[in-house]
């Protein structure tokens, strides 16, 4: 199946609820990573179907980097670039990488990653807090990828990060949100935007993130490595908007037993 590139914005309802991040206002609450796409054409179709306005990119040695075509595609899609520090294991490396990215991309926004374990790619809170402090002091708009520890999240917010981006599960695992309770606690403990980052596998995961009170969702693998990246991108667009609307709509309470939806009064005796 295909998604026409002229695909309209899903509904008028979402645009009434703008997303303010780092002093800018976005319509879409879905941040998309570019890694893992089977082709540039697939990437472009996914970016367009997702409705995203903010996509992550990385820096690598020129020999290994994709040629400029990818940036041309992203420019054509009119999205803002968000450099990451993927692969950094220390605050020093991450800070230097962020500064190099500022040079290369001309943006002081950074998705801050400082990895503490190679198998799980989980963040190292100590190095992360150190790097976040340095980059905030250096004027960066810092979006830190963190675990789901509410205390670390609050420390990041207190340092002046523009948002906190707790994980749902390890990067690329597709396990969804392993600990919804922790995400709900983070939502209570911080005043900055909360963006669920990593672990999303399918649409209901993204909807749940929004229902837990997240302001946005960042995902890459779930879309780029899906059998049909463009279709999954459209699915995620719907899921994030649906989850956001549900969070605002005020859901019904959970009840152990039933409550009739059809009135029983006037039931005939047949």
């Amino acid at each position, binding site marked *: 199946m295909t998604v026409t590139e002229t695909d309209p914005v899903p509904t008028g309802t979402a645009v009434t609820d703008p997303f303010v991040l780092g002093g800018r206002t976005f319509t879409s609450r879905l941040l998309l*990573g*570019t*890694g*893992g*796409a089977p082709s540039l054409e697939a*990437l472009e179709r996914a970016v367009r179907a997702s409705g995203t306005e903010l996509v*992550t*990119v*990385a*820096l*690598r*040695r*020129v*020999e*290994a*980097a*994709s*040629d*400029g075509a*990818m*940036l041309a595609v992203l420019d054509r899609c009119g999205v803002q670039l968000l*450099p*990451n520090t*993927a692969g950094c294991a220390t605050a020093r490396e991450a800070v*230097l990488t962020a*500064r*190099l*990215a500022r*040079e*290369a*991309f*001309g943006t002081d926004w950074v998705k801050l990653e400082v990895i503490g374990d190679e198998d799980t790619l989980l963040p190292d809170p100590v190095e992360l807090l150190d790097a976040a402090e340095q980059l905030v002091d250096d004027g960066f708009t810092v979006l830190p990828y963190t675990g789901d520890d509410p205390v670390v999240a609050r420390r990041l917010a207190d340092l002046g990060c523009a948002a906190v981006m707790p994980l749902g599960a390890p*990067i*690329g695992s597709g396990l969804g949100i392993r600990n919804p309770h922790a995400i709900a606690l983070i939502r209570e403990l911080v005043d900055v935007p909360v963006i669920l980052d990593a672990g999303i596998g399918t649409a209901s995961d993204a909807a749940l993130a929004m229902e837990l009170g997240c302001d946005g969702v960042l995902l*890459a*693998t779930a879309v780029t490595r899906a059998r049909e990246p463009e279709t999954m991108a459209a699915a995620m667009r719907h899921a994030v908007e649906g989850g956001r609307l549900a969070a605002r709509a005020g859901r019904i309470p959970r009840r152990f037993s039933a409550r009739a939806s059809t009135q029983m009064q006037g039931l005939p005796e047949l």
Partner: protein
Amino acid sequence: MQVTVNGEAAELAEGATVAGLVAQRSAGHSRVAVALNGGVVPRSSWERTTLSPGDTVEVLAPTAGG
């Protein structure tokens, strides 16, 4: 002279500049960043930044990321 570029030994002429190295290495890349001995070399300084023997240089370019 001998320097290390992107993790590999490279032989450059005396007085080689970062600008020259970038021009030689970054074909097809518009947005390039350069680290010299663990620090950033701003694009505005590439021309006047000459390399010295033993320098470690990283020439980086954009790629896909999550």
